[in-house]
Structure formats: structure tokens, C-alpha cells
């Protein structure tokens, strides 16, 4: 790798991290302030309306109706993302499972936007279920995985099998990484 290519790669990584951090902060701010943003009622009258990132926008348009604006909705009918989705990041099989879900793999967005959507979901909704040092999805990784979607698979069984092989402690954050008490 030439120094220039290295610099470009570093800048890309920094931009990715910044985008993820901004998304997480926006989601937390919204989740923590029910007076300003109630997931059932949206932004309160007279409060500033947040500007969403591209990843958030596509999440809302294509996933958020059922999965919930803050990653939590009708438990039992819809898989709960908040505080849950991070566990799939414990294993490579879980990481691949998410991208190969039909509604994810066949989503009408390009690889880089799809990676942004997935990173928004993982890092904003993962909370305590998110293991340490999870690497964000890249467009390349997503592009490769979505070319082999799970089409005629029993997704529920597949998820059970993946979770059975997942270390239950994997998602436990170190004490200093835990969210401060409110």
C-alpha cells in the first residue's frame, strides 16, 4: 500500500467512525429525552427536528416502521433490536446472518448505504448486547455477503442455531464501558 493509499484508507476509517458515533449520539439523545422525542408521537411541537444521517433515513424508511423508531416495538411480533441485536456480532455466523436476511440483502440501496444502515442498527441499538471492539461493516463486506442471501432458509431456526453457539458473556461490556447511570 502506498502512503497515499494508506492515508486515504485512514481518512475513510475516520469518517466511518465519526458517522457511527454521530448516529449513536443522535439515537441516545432521542432515547434519553422522551419529552423532546416520544417514539410513538415523534418530535414534540416546537422542539427542533433532528436531521438524520443517510443510514438512519434508510432505516426509518425501510425498517423502522416495524422494528421501531428507537429499535423497539411490538415484542413477540417483531424481533427486538434494542439491547439485543449486538449479540449477533459475537460470532462471524451472526455477523453474516444479518446481511443475508432477505429484507436486508435485497434492500434497494447500494452496498455503502446498506453498510451505514447496518452500522446504525448495531451501534445505536446494540447497547449492552454489543461486544467490545466490534468492527463496523464496510461496503465491501456487505457487498460480498448480500450476494449470497438466505432465500429458502428457515430464518428462525438458523437464528436459534447461531445463538446456541454464542457465548452468553460475549456481549457483556467492561465496567468502564457501561453507560453512566441516568
Amino acid at each position, binding site marked *: 500500500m502506498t502512503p497515499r493509499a494508506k492515508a486515504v484508507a485512514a481518512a475513510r476509517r475516520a469518517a466511518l467512525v465519526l458517522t457511527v458515533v454521530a448516529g449513536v449520539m443522535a439515537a441516545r439523545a432521542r432515547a434519553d429525552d422522551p419529552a423532546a422525542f416520544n417514539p410513538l*408521537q*415523534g*418530535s414534540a411541537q416546537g422542539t427542533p427536528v433532528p436531521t*438524520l444521517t443517510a443510514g*438512519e433515513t434508510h432505516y*426509518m424508511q425501510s425498517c*423502522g*416502521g416495524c422494528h*421501531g423508531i428507537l429499535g423497539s416495538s*411490538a415484542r413477540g411480533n417483531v424481533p427486538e433490536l434494542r439491547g439485543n441485536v449486538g449479540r449477533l456480532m459475537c460470532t462471524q455466523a451472526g455477523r453474516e446472518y444479518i446481511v443475508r436476511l432477505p429484507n436486508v440483502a435485497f434492500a434497494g440501496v447500494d452496498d455503502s448505504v446498506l453498510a451505514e444502515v447496518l452500522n446504525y442498527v448495531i451501534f445505536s441499538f446494540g447497547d449492552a448486547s454489543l461486544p467490545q471492539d466490534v468492527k463496523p461493516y464496510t461496503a465491501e463486506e456487505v457487498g460480498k455477503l448480500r450476494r449470497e442471501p438466505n432465500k429458502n432458509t428457515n430464518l428462525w431456526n438458523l437464528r436459534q442455531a447461531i445463538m446456541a453457539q454464542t457465548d452468553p458473556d460475549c456481549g457483556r461490556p467492561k465496567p468502564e464501558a457501561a453507560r453512566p447511570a441516568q
Partner: protein
Amino acid sequence: MNSNRTADTAATLAERLSRRLARRTSRRSLLTRLGAALVAAPVLPLLPVTRAEAEDHPAGGKSRQLTDFEKNSQSKDPTKCNYWRHCAIDGVICGACGGGIHTCPPGAQPALTSWIGTCLNPDDDRYYLVAYRDCCGKDLCGAAQDGLCFSNDRELPVYRPQSNNDTIWCFGSSTMVYHCTTSALIGVATEK
């Protein structure tokens, strides 16, 4: 005329033309023109027409095509169907049923799931994400004609069920009885 002679004539003609061109134009003039073209190229896309085409608009594609709803929408009266936030409501607006733009009327419960659309705000010309959340658990609201809306911006047919808004989105509430729909504001859309 045989083909060799044709080729000879063509070659002679081409030679004569290029020699004439070489005599008349200096290398410097070529550089000047090339330089001007190089400078002009990035400037041309700044023309307003091109710029408008290049501007990204969520769900509207590259070129800005207003939907019929967007051409007639208003931002003053949220109890009317043409209020901008009702661009994909397909139901009865709760504001006409004793509720508010994002609150259910007394006795009806907000569903936990919603249908999320993208609407253009005519005041600031930006696209916003709007969650259409059904209020359930009470018989269909008998609002006058004003409250019954049928707008479907960016809706897709039933073979894309998650993008269709004909469904009653009462999933997650204790009952599937539909009463009316609210239009909650989620945020300003950013599309790539």
C-alpha cells in the same frame, strides 16, 4: 474507380487539410483553447439547470419531480388531507376525530408499529420522515369527508408489503380494530 486510387485521393486530401491546419494555427492557440476548455468544464455544471438536476432529493430521484400531492399541499391546517405531513396517510386523520396530529383520540391506543413515509415540507423545501401510526381499539372514526384522506406518495404495491400503506398497522396493540391515523414527525431525511 479502383479502391487503391480512392485511398490515394483520400490520403492526399487528408494531408493537404492537415498541412493547411498546421500552417494556420499555432501551438500556442491550441494550448489557449485547451486551457479555456479545462477551466470552463467545471464551471458549466454550476449552471442552475444542471445544479437542480444534480441535487439529491429523497425518494424523488435526481431530478425534482413534485408529486400531485406535493403540488397542492399546505402547511397551515393539519386537520385537512392536503396538510404536507399527510402525504401518505390512506386513512382517517386523528385530528378530525378528537385527537391531534400525533396523538390518539381518547379511548384509542397508538399501535407499536407504524408505516413510515417521506413528505416534502413546502415551508422549508426539505423532506421529512413521517411515521403514520394507527390508533386502534375503537371503531372506525366517522369523521366527515374532510377527515378521510387517500394520499399515497412513495407507496409500493402489496407485493412489497412493507412498503404498502393499505395495511392496518395495528400490530402490537391488543386489538386490530382501526380508528384513525396520526402523522408523527421523525426527522429531516438525508438521502444518498
